[in-house]
């Protein structure tokens, strides 16, 4: 593998007593679509702002293309950012907005115009080039903002929740636009979002942050199927989390005794100690539902509390002994034949291979 485009080495950012980013070490590779995800205040936006030079780290090193960037000022960098508020200049037309960065670099007027119109055309908004940006719709503004950054032909594009102001349908369309652009241009995208669906739909790799720390880094599928710790398991959502004591462990599986019964999970590396307290997760869509005991290894009894119906997919919320919460996600058509009155008892079961033990903590 080639050298990473961006390296964070033990980077810390404090604002007074508040630690926004703590001891962050992260590589960002050339041409990858990286999403940084977390709830508000987790440090994801601060991380992005440090990449753009709008904040400088209080400790550690940030390098881009090998060059130490800690104290390089924003206007001396090649790190255009697409802002959450878009930050288009309201006193300029769409074309003038796109030309702004080129003008700052001293590109001649004729070439500037040509390149700006080229990008507006590529974003399919060439007809609005001379319109003031205030008169454009949300989706059109979004495209102007993207064009304004991409016309600079950067190695890396930074995006700070750019889709959060759009309505749901437009978000899906813009996700398509973004992923296609990223593949076509072959440049690195660093995309900050609080939305799991945006991150998982677009990114090659996802970084999940919590209170200034990286909680997990990995491909969306790996994070979804095998959350590393409790925070990620809860954040990613629709996960069942059970806690108990390890009774036996070997390469074939680990037995865990819980108040809800005895279960078998995949043995992680390194394997846990016998007698250790562990938690494991099972994705809600990998749990089967039945009226009678299925007689398999991992089975649990639970009472239906409520259901959440969103089109073809239904999520059932159930409760087991000791108040254990379960979530089961199923196709709506697979539920015909079940009595879904709240209070009905069911049996839940899952494959041992789908149960993943979390890191301690």
């Amino acid at each position, binding site marked *: 593998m080639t050298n990473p485009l961006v390296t964070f080495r033990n980077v810390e950012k404090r604002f007074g007593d508040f630690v926004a980013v703590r001891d962050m070490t992260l590589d960002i590779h050339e041409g990858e679509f990286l999403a940084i995800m977390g709830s508000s205040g987790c440090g994801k936006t601060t991380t992005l702002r440090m990449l753009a030079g709008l904040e400088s780290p209080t400790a550690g090193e940030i390098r881009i293309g090998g060059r130490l960037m800690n104290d390089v000022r924003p206007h001396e960098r090649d790190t255009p950012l697409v802002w959450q508020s878009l930050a288009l200049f309201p006193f300029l037309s769409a074309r003038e907005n796109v030309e702004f*960065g080129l003008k700052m670099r001293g590109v001649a007027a004729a070439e500037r115009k040509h390149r700006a119109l080229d990008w507006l055309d590529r974003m399919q908004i060439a007809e609005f080039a001379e319109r003031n940006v205030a008169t454009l719709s949300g989706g059109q503004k979004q495209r102007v903002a993207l064009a304004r950054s991409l016309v600079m032909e950067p190695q890396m594009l930074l995006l700070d929740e750019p889709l959060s102001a759009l309505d749901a349908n437009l978000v899906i369309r813009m996700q398509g636009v973004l992923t296609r652009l990223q593949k076509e241009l072959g440049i690195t995208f660093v995309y900050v979002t609080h939305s799991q669906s945006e991150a998982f739909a677009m990114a090659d790799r996802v970084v999940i942050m919590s209170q200034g720390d990286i909680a997990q880094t990995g491909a969306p599928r790996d994070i979804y199927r095998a959350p590393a710790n409790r925070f990620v398991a809860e954040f990613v959502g629709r996960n069942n989390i059970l806690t108990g004591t390890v009774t036996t462990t070997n390469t074939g599986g680990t037995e865990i005794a819980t108040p809800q019964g005895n279960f078998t999970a995949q043995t992680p590396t390194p394997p846990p100690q016998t007698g250790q307290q562990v938690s494991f997760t099972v994705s809600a869509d990998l749990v089967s539902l039945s009226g009678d005991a299925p007689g398999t290894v991992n089975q649990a009894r639970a009472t239906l509390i409520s259901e959440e119906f969103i089109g073809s997919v239904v999520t059932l919320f159930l409760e087991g002994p000791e108040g254990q919460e379960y979530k089961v996600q199923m196709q709506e058509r697979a539920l015909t034949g079940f009595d879904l009155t709240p209070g009905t008892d069911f049996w839940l079961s899952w494959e041992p291979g789908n149960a993943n033990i979390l890191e301690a903590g």
Partner: protein
Amino acid sequence: MSAPRRLNLYALTWRLPIILWQLMFFVGPVLFMVAISFFVVRNYRMTEAFEFVNWEKMLTRGYFWDSYWYTLFIASLSASVAMLVAFPAAWALAFRASDNLRRWAVFLLVIPFFTSYLVRTFSWYVILAESGVLNAMLGYIGLGPFKMLNTHFGTVVGYLTLTLPLAVILQTVTMANIDKTLIEAARNLGCKPLATIWRVVLPLSRTGFIVAALFCFILAFGDFVAPFYLGGSQEPTLPILILDTTKSGQQWPRAAVVAIMMMLTLFTVAFTAIALAYRKPAGSR
């Protein structure tokens, strides 16, 4: 489909006092002043008439136009100086100061308005006089004494006393409302820190700044105190000309001509400035 317009008695009742006030104390006097400008003075007594003699006498005289252009020039100059001198302070208050400090600063800037402008003007005597504070200090480093009272400089100092705090307040409030993300966005696109002032801050502040400059101009253009007491009416400004005209031979009709010319000028300047301030950017619909 709009509902037929009907007389809204409720709204009218509440508007009536201000309408009456304006009619009695603004429209009425202005019309009266226009009428007076056609009156004639015979034996030091104003007599009703409809003659153009006052207009002819004033508008064909060199001293009127000298005074007119001088007033226009010195008011524009002091408005420009006020805007320029105010800018660094307002910029620092808007972008560098904490919200708390900014609140205090705006409060402190209001304090000068607590005392009479006349009193503040006279206090400049102590500072600007031949043997005043400023010349004494300059004397220590071997400079001066300079004549500062009864000069154009004195007039401008007086105008600034009136307009500078206002200019700082209006500029600060205008720039404090700027979305800081836009400045960061400009920096992100390669704009140098100082260049953001005229690439981003000034375009975004256009309305507020034009209104501030307009206020500075109007206050200076119509001011009598500064040019009279600090400028020593060396070159009479229009307000001084009005005073002189009324004093010399009870020429109220000719003074009315000067006043009407001043009002027409202010209307033109204010109208142009407001139109500029609220002009929509190109490509708006």
